[in-house]
């Protein structure tokens, strides 16, 4: 075919967990699949790196928790083991400049504020149980719930500033943005999709329960290996021409000599497996329907930088500390012990999230490093100020994710654009964790969306059941 480099039944744009899972199922259904990935690696928001000092760090998604059954099955299939996130010892609450050790989920230094926090979380969780995670816009009060922010709700639901502050910290860690940036309806559906807000913020028994020995990207690499040369790296999709008969997808593909040239693939269907804000940069011809394009404009990614400080050993454990901080101010509002399972060296991981992430842009890498180490030293002692190595992963500066960990929907977006989240546009189908009906924002949600979209596409093409088959 003139001007076309490749043909396929289905093009999958994006080789994160959603795209890889979709491609695997589609290939198993006997369809000819091409996966176009913008980066020179697979995994999307999940990226495991071996640092200069030899530490294995997850620069993106890293945990698995109860009820994340697809992820568990996949890890089992590729023989990747899990181990509990380190929780032994006291957590530290940093509040009004003071340090307060606590155990369990909620800081206890201000009992009234803490009790208020628990009561507020319960109210939020009970409300969340009424909201469908797959279609929050169907709730009878969706209009109202989507007209206010989480912050507006918390302002009246909570009695104390401590509760408001703790909810804000939890929101920053979970969404990468503050409660004032999120629609209440979105938060409720999102929380229900992972069980409850309490389960999203729990370590043991919750979303942060376990880590993967060797990192969370391994299963993506394994899926990609199974797909072989169907996965094309370094090939960001820049344009999609579509019509009743299919799509012509244009990628800006890097050749062996590093020179980029348009790579066109004709296919019957396209699966877009990336966040709305990222597909908003692709030129669709004809343009996408208004509601879908508006979704792409109104679903900004959270702002998050993930930092790792690597030490010779997890010295804070000797002091009876878990490595977890919950802070009311500063760059690092939440930290975790990300040391390897055998404790052969120590790793503290922290999130710079929301406005702090955006505002710390001007500080530069050295400024952020200095501020983070100062905060870690204040919590864990002077030894924390001198890591062997310090890394930062600024997701907001990643053009093919544009932030993280997930899209942050403000008021009015779900009720206005929600129904277009998964609705195909002609031959174009939508995947990605943002489209999941449960565990949206997590690897589990990405896998679910890949599974769902593969079934959708296989049915549309009259192909065999897209049951999970061989790699």
């Amino acid at each position: 075919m003139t001007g076309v480099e490749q043909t396929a039944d289905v093009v999958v744009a994006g080789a994160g967990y959603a795209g890889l899972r979709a491609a695997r199922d589609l290939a198993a259904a006997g369809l000819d699949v091409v996966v176009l990935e913008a980066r020179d690696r697979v995994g999307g928001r999940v990226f495991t790196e071996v640092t200069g000092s030899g530490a294995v760090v997850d620069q993106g998604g890293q945990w698995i928790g109860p009820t994340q059954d697809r992820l568990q099955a996949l890890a089992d299939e590729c023989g990747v083991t899990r181990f509990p996130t380190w929780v032994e010892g006291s957590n530290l609450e940093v509040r009004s400049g003071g340090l307060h050790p606590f155990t369990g989920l909620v800081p206890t230094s201000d009992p009234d504020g803490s009790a208020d926090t628990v009561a507020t979380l319960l109210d939020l969780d009970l409300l969340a149980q009424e909201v469908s995670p797959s279609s929050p816009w169907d709730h009878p009060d969706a209009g109202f719930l989507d007209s206010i922010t989480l912050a507006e709700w918390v302002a009246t639901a909570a009695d104390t500033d401590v509760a408001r502050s703790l909810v804000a910290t939890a929101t920053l860690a979970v969404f990468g943005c503050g409660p004032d940036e999120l629609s209440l309806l979105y938060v409720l559906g999102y929380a229900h999709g992972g069980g409850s807000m309490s389960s999203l913020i729990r370590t043991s028994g919750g979303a942060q329960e376990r880590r993967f020995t060797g990192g969370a990207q391994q299963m993506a690499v394994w899926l990609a290996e199974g797909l072989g040369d169907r996965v094309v790296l370094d090939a960001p999709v820049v344009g999609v021409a579509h019509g009743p008969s299919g799509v012509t997808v244009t990628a800006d593909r890097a050749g062996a000599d590093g020179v980029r040239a348009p790579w066109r693939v004709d296919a019957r269907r396209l699966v877009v497996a990336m966040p709305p804000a990222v597909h908003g940069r692709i030129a669709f011809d004809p343009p996408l329907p208004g509601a879908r394009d508006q979704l792409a404009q109104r679903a900004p990614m959270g702002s998050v930088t993930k930092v790792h400080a690597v030490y010779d050993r997890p010295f804070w454990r000797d002091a009876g500390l878990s490595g977890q901080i919950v802070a009311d101010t500063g760059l690092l509002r939440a930290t975790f012990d990300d040391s390897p399972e055998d404790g052969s060296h120590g790793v503290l991981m922290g999130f710079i999230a929301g406005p702090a992430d955006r505002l710390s842009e001007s500080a530069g890498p050295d400024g952020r490093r200095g501020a983070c180490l100062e905060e870690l030293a204040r919590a864990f002692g002077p030894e924390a100020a001198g890591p062997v190595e310090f890394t930062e992963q600024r997701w907001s500066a990643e053009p093919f994710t544009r932030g993280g960990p997930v899209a942050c929907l403000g008021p009015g977006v779900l009720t206005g654009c929600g129904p277009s989240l998964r609705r195909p546009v002609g031959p174009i189908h939508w995947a990605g964790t943002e489209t999941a009906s449960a565990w949206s924002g997590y690897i589990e949600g990405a896998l679910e969306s890949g599974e769902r979209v593969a079934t959708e596409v296989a049915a549309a093409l009259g192909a065999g059941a897209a049951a999970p088959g061989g790699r």
Partner: protein
Amino acid sequence: MATADEIAEAYADWQVRCNGNARLARMLRGWDRTVHLMATDTGDGFTIAVSGSVLADLRHGLVDRPDLVVSATSEDFADLFWGDLNPSEKYVSGEIVLAGSSEDVMRLDAMSMVAFLDQ
């Protein structure tokens, strides 16, 4: 190990604190339930009825059909009611097991934590 009488004594103390707690009363509104307590080491069973935002006296034995079943050691029950034990921590570690609908479990977990914090 705690005897049934010791658990009853600790519960009576907890009951007074809970029933005098405005925040708990608000959380209990509309939540009328029968809760069974199972002491895993002694085999003792107890029943607590919650009705009209009030915790009734502890009854020795398993009475009525439970909405929720709480399993823990007799010592943990006594410590919990005396306010010496962080219930959320024990629940997360699996040493206290709650069985019931997810909503009821969520509520009891939160309410026991509030009772602990508000003492």
